[in-house]
Structures are given as C-alpha cells and as structure tokens.
C-alpha cells in the first residue's frame, strides 16, 4: 500500500512539474530558445503574489487573477525588447542572456526580500485532505494542482490545434522561414509564445509557493525539474511534457519511499536513463503539436 501511495503522491507532484515545464517546452519549440530564467520567473510570480497579499490582504488564491495577466504582459515585452535581440546574436547569446536574467532576478529578489524561506499561506486548504483508501490520503491542494495542470495542458493543446494563433505557433515551430513567407508575423508569434510561457510558469510558481516554501534561489531547482520533465516526455511535445512531469514526480516520490534522501536523485537517474535509451522522449513525436 505504501507504494501505491507513493505513486499517487508522485502523480500529483508531477502535475506541478508539468505546469512548470510546458512553457519551457513551448518556447523551445517555437524559437529554439532555452530559457534559463524560466524557473526564476515562476519564483518572481510567487513573490509578486506575496506583495499583493501583504498590501491587499485576503487568501493568496485570488492573486492568480492578477499575477497571470501581468506575467503574460511581461512575457510579451520580454520577448519584444530582450529575447528577440538575443535571438539575432547567434546560438550562444540567448543562453547567456537568459542566464544573466536568471542571476539578476535571483539577486533582486534576495536584495528585496532577503534569503529566508517564504510561503503563501492559503489556510486550511494547505493541509486538508481526502481519504482514498484506508491508509491513502491525498492533499486537497495537490489534487487541485493536478487537475489544473491537466486542464492547462489540454487547454493549451486545444488552443494550438484549433485557433489561427495556435496554428501560427505550430507553423513557426515547424519552419520559421516558411511561416514568414506565408504571412505569419514572426515577432508577434514569438511574443505570444513567451506570453503564454510566462503565464503558465506563473501558475506553476504560485502553486509551488502554496505547496512548499520557497526562496529567491528556488528557481534553479525548479528549472532543473522542468527540464527533466520536458526531456523525459519528448522535446517540444505538450502531451509528452505532461507525461514527463508525471514520470518525474512518481520517480521522485517512489525514490523517497526507498530512501527519504534519494528522491531527487532517483528522478535524475530516470531522466538520465531516458536520455541514454530513448533520447527522443517517452512520447515519440508522431503527432506533435509543437516541435
């Protein structure tokens, strides 16, 4: 029973990783840009929520409504005024620029909020649970996070497959030159991808902050998990990213069950095993949306 429990808890944790990772996957797919500041932007969103609650009060849950649009707008301008220029500077410059951005965010947060751990207090929801079986309990928050993760990814997938803007994103991901020659505005499309990526990572950041404590430097670890989820699932494939997040979550909790200190290590080993034996990811890219 403890193993069933570990798998279920891992599944729920994996949902959070999937939310964190889908934006990374989207940005890489559309513009071959690896955003090393992705995790930090999620943490930044969590601090923004803290400020809002401090000044306006209430349960942090309401801040989603404010943080998501702000993150999307920030993403739009980040792409237009920084990342677009970085993309013009060769292969290395986006990596250097986003790495620099990561350092700047971490240090600004440290300067402003100090290095202490913080968390978003959402009251009873953080410890209430549902009983699934005699000795399996699932945290209500974790279940909510899981279902929202699935919802976000299904929604994103529907957006990509059913709308003209989504088609433009897929076309740009597939062949940038042909997309521009078909009349698709490359700058607008890239800005849209980054806006979506930041909106989703903001959701991830807030959930993470509600689930556990976080600090200005938490972003790097979050980025690592997001990376692992993306690679395990298959690069540039949203369903794959969901599966990758779930697999990583399960690996970590089952690993912790074997030895409490080894959870993250087991997750890393699963990631390395996928890289070694199935580098294209668990979900082969036959019906990819973005690649």
């Amino acid at each position, binding site marked *: 029973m403890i193993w069933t429990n570990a798998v279920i808890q891992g599944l729920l944790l994996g949902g959070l990783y999937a939310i964190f990772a889908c934006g990374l996957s989207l940005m890489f797919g559309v513009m071959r840009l690896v955003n090393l500041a992705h995790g930090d932007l999620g943490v930044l969103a969590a601090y923004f929520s803290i400020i809002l609650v401090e000044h306006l009060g209430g349960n942090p849950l309401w801040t989603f409504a404010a943080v998501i649009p702000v993150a999307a707008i920030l993403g739009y301008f980040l792409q237009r005024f920084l990342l677009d220029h970085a993309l013009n500077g060769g292969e290395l410059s986006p990596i250097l620029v986003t790495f620099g951005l990561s350092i700047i965010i971490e240090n600004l947060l440290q300067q402003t909020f100090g290095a202490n751990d913080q968390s978003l207090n959402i009251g009873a929801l953080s410890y209430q649970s549902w009983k699934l079986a005699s000795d399996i309990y699932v945290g209500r928050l974790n279940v909510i996070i899981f279902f929202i993760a699935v919802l976000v990814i299904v929604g994103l997938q529907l957006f990509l497959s059913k709308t003209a803007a989504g088609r433009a994103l897929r076309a740009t991901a597939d062949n940038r*030159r042909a997309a521009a020659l078909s009349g698709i*505005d490359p700058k607008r499309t890239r800005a849209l991808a980054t806006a979506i990526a930041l909106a989703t990572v903001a959701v991830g950041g807030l959930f993470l902050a509600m689930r556990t404590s976080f600090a200005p430097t938490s972003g790097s670890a979050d980025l690592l998990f997001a990376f692992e989820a993306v690679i395990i699932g298959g690069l540039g494939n949203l369903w794959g990213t969901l599966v990758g997040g779930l697999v990583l979550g399960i690996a970590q909790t089952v690993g912790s069950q074997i030895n409490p200190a080894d959870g993250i290590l087991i997750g890393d080993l699963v990631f390395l095993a996928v890289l070694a034996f199935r580098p294209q990811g668990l979900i082969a890219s036959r019906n990819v949306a973005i690649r």
Partner: protein
Amino acid sequence: MALLHLDGVTAYYGHLQALHELSLQVDAGEILAVIGANGAGKSTMLSLISGELRPREGRVYLNDVDITRIAPHQRVRRGIALVPEGRHLFGTLTVEDNLLCGTASKRPGTWNLDAVYELFPLVKARRKHRAAVLSGGEQQAVAIGRALMSNPSLLLLDEVSLGLAPVVIKDLYEALRRIAAEGTTLLLVEQNITEALRVANYAICLLEGRVVLEGEPASLSQPAISDAYFGNKATSGSGAKPKGAS
C-alpha cells in the same frame, strides 16, 4: 504601370556579388519566366522580391510603392507570395493546416480552401494527412495552394518542377495556367526551360547576375537561349526587342 519593378538592384551572396544592377519589370497579368543556370542569381532575385534579402543598392517597387525595406510577412499582406524552392511545407501540420497558414495575411480574394481543392483535387483527398507524408508532386501542389490562400497579386515560384516526374510537372503547369487565368501575375524561376517558356509570355535569361537575353518566348531562338544560358557569348543577340526599364 508595372506591378513589380526592380530598379538597379545589387545583391551579394556571402562575398560573392550575385546580382549586378539588375532592373526588371513585371506587368500585371503577365507570366514572366526567369531562366538561367545554377548560380545565375535567380533565387537571389526572388529573395529580394519576397523580402528575405535586402539589396545592397537599388530599390524594389510594388505598384510604385517602395517596399525595399519591408519584411517578408508584410509583403505577403501587400500581395507577394513565394513558393520556395524545396517547398518548405510545415511537415508536422496537416495539409489543411498548411493551407490555412496562408490566410494569416487576411487578404481578401477569390482563393480559399474550396478553390484550392478544386484546382488540386488530389490535395483535397489528402487534406487530413500530415504534409510530410505526401509525394513530391502533392507537396508542390500544397505549397502552391498555401501561397494562393494569401490571394497574391504576384505569385513567385522557385523551381516548381525540380525533382518531379514529367507527367506531374505537366499537371502543375496546367494548374499555373489556370491560376494566371484567374488574374494572378506569375513570376517563374526555372531551370526547366521547356515548360517555363511554353507557359510564359515574356522570358528573361540571367547569367552571372545580369540579364543577358529577354523577349517573348516565341522570338527567342534555341541557339540564342543556349548561348545566354551557358554564357558562350553573353550577348542578347536574339533580335527580340528588349522591354527595358522604361
């Protein structure tokens, strides 16, 4: 008034000068064939028109409006569509999605999904398939269809017949005739001289970035074309009256 006017454009391919003060005009409703050997500057010329490359010198006009500094996707909005060499379809997208991508410019006109499917019935049968699994001829038809979906006033075609079977080429050229009949101006860049000259009503031969021969196809003799193509004499001694840059 010319639909398109290249006015003394000079362009480089790396360090190599690909076009030397090239001037040409395309009139509305015409089918212009640009022929020439590999490296003559044909594709470079198309890049200048599609906006992927900017000339070092000279200007590009569409309907007398200077578009030299306008980006490719904005040129599509103004009515220039390119069917690139090698087709460049979105292989992971379905055929229908490929076609719909051509509507991003939102130009009004007679071309839509139904019209393209009517022109290429085989494409319609394959509309739910991913573009990557199509045959070469089908892919070329989709590429042309995608360009048509933007309702271009000027359709640029780069080596449409490349790598295709003669019977497929014949069908594609038949479709091009119908496209022209609908009122779209065509600029064909071809190494397949026979087909290009058969459909065109004006032809230009490029050699090392210069126009060395031009005229109506019927007025160009086989030896003159051959000389111009391979650069044996590099003169426009065809006897045809050059259209020039008026």
